[in-house]
């Protein structure tokens, strides 16, 4: 993936979503026009290109900041979806508050994003739904350093169990307090975490499953082993 260099991530600062216009060379049209797009163009009605705006004054964000002091790090809105940056230490408390007091009883999705060169390296992203607030949804985002454990929310929403296992498996982020933190999609002796940006797309030949007499149990060849090969 040598050509990846030109798409190299313009990693946004911690707890802050990427801003349009930061990777200026990559998006000539999109970055230049968010404000200039005329709402009533001659062409078929065209919505303006979404841009991230500040959402710190939204009632939900204000209420959360007041109820759990120190939890809210940032708040952005893009494509009419609100993202609240949460401090890792306050995550479980904030989630409990949102579930119990703000009726976000349904955790729709939980995933992670690897920003490779940024510090903290990972974003763990939560997407909450409230039936009682007219199907309102809100996204939480927590910055997690490499090797740092993220607090588990499996005690708040049971459905987080498998989703956190998946993030653990594919990104290598461990979840502190998780009841059953095992790999879920790859097999138990697998080495590496496939969705990390430094994991080769061609995959690795772990060998261990196929040749148990040749490779140690639970592990494949080391990175400098001549038996290690990539597929393409």
């Amino acid at each position, binding site marked *: 993936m040598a050509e990846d260099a030109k798409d190299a991530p313009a990693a946004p600062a911690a707890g802050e979503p990427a801003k349009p216009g930061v990777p200026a060379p990559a998006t000539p049209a999109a970055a230049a026009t968010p404000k200039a797009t005329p709402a009533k163009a001659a062409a078929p009605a*065209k919505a303006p290109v979404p841009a991230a705006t500040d959402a710190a004054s939204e009632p939900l964000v204000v209420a959360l900041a007041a109820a759990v002091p120190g939890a809210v790090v940032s708040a952005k809105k893009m494509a009419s979806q609100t993202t609240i940056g949460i401090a890792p230490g306050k995550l479980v408390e904030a989630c409990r508050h949102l579930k119990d007091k703000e009726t976000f009883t349904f955790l729709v999705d939980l995933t992670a994003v690897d920003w490779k060169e940024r510090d903290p390296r990972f974003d763990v992203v939560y997407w909450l739904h409230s039936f009682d607030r007219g199907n309102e949804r809100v996204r939480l985002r927590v910055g997690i350093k490499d090797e740092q454990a993220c607090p588990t929310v499996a005690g708040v929403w049971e459905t987080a169990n498998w989703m956190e296992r998946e993030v653990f498996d594919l990104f290598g982020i461990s979840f502190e307090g998780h009841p059953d933190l095992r790999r879920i999609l790859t097999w138990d002796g697998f080495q590496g975490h496939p969705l990390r940006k430094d994991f080769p797309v061609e995959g690795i030949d772990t060998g261990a499953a196929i040749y148990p007499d040749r490779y140690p149990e639970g592990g494949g060849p080391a990175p400098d082993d001549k038996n290690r090969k990539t597929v393409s």
Partner: protein
Amino acid sequence: MSEFVGTVGAVPEAGDTMLGLREMELNFGPQHPSTHGVLRIVLKVDGERIVSARPDIGYLHRGTEKLFETETYPMVIPHTDRLDYVAAATNNHAYVLVVEKLLGLEIPKRAQYIRVVLDEMQRISSHLLWLATAAIDLGAITPFFYTFREREVILDLFEDYCGARLTLNCMRVGGLEEELTPGWIERLRAFTEDLGGKIDEYEELLTENRIWKDRTIGVGILKTDRCIAWGVTGPPLRASGLAWDIRRAIPYECYPELDFEIPTGKNADTYDRYLVRIAELRQSRRILLQCCDWLTANPTGEIRGKVPRVIKPPAGEAYASVESPKGELGFYLVSNGGNRPYRLRVRPPSFINLQALPEMARGHMVSDLVAIIGTIDIVLGEVDR
């Protein structure tokens, strides 16, 4: 369960058990015919009764989300076909929706209606496949022949429209690639009008069938609050009594203009989930008839909006979801402004619904597990991605 092929490894354990017998660990799958793919469930049984069921997944993991990151935005669409491979149109739809959301695109009305037609045909074909296999798992083989008769017509219509029967690759960012072929709408209307009577035929075979009712009523109960706790969406959630459907809750395309109801159950068991899916077949039929009317009245028009030649959404993130036949299917897209997704996450309804299996199966007989796996309606391509 004479066809049972799981391997048996006796694990004696101390302690009280329900029948005063020893608990046994039993591998159900991964090659069992009723698991609909390669799903392994590690069972602890006490006699015939399930003490615990632990799904073991990942046999079909292909690293789809990693592959997404190597493809340009249009090249991602065929990969989405292969997630829930019996409902490719809804997969395509959820993906193009999220890219359109990040680009801020409006798509032409005619394209919206054709998308809804494809979605609803896909819902019917997916539910028909579910009905066929769920019934066959419980020993009723006849519905299979009936439902595949109708599914074949839908697949033929798909083939006429886009050349593929399963992996449709039929939607594009900003609209659609192909206009409908001549006479297609008339064929669809003829099929749809007939479908009502065909659904009656399925119901005649099953709804009041005593064996079917014995095997499904009271089996695998999952009440609304438990559904929400486990994140379960789609027919299992509606069968528990909550009328929640993305098409109404967070509408997309032209669904607000269409007249349809959200069927619900009340007992939250396997039988109610069956009734809900049957009712959804009828509602999809209603939607298709309305779309046929609209498309006949508006026979021409744009099917693709103004889309940049190279699709490069602005840096940022968005989530969009559709009501797939299995539940809420969502895509979460993180863009860095390049021409490929920086991160594209699938919110797979099958994966998340499967997580509730241990709770649904606990205390039931091993043979009921077959009914419960069937009733969740999983597709392993989507579970494992």
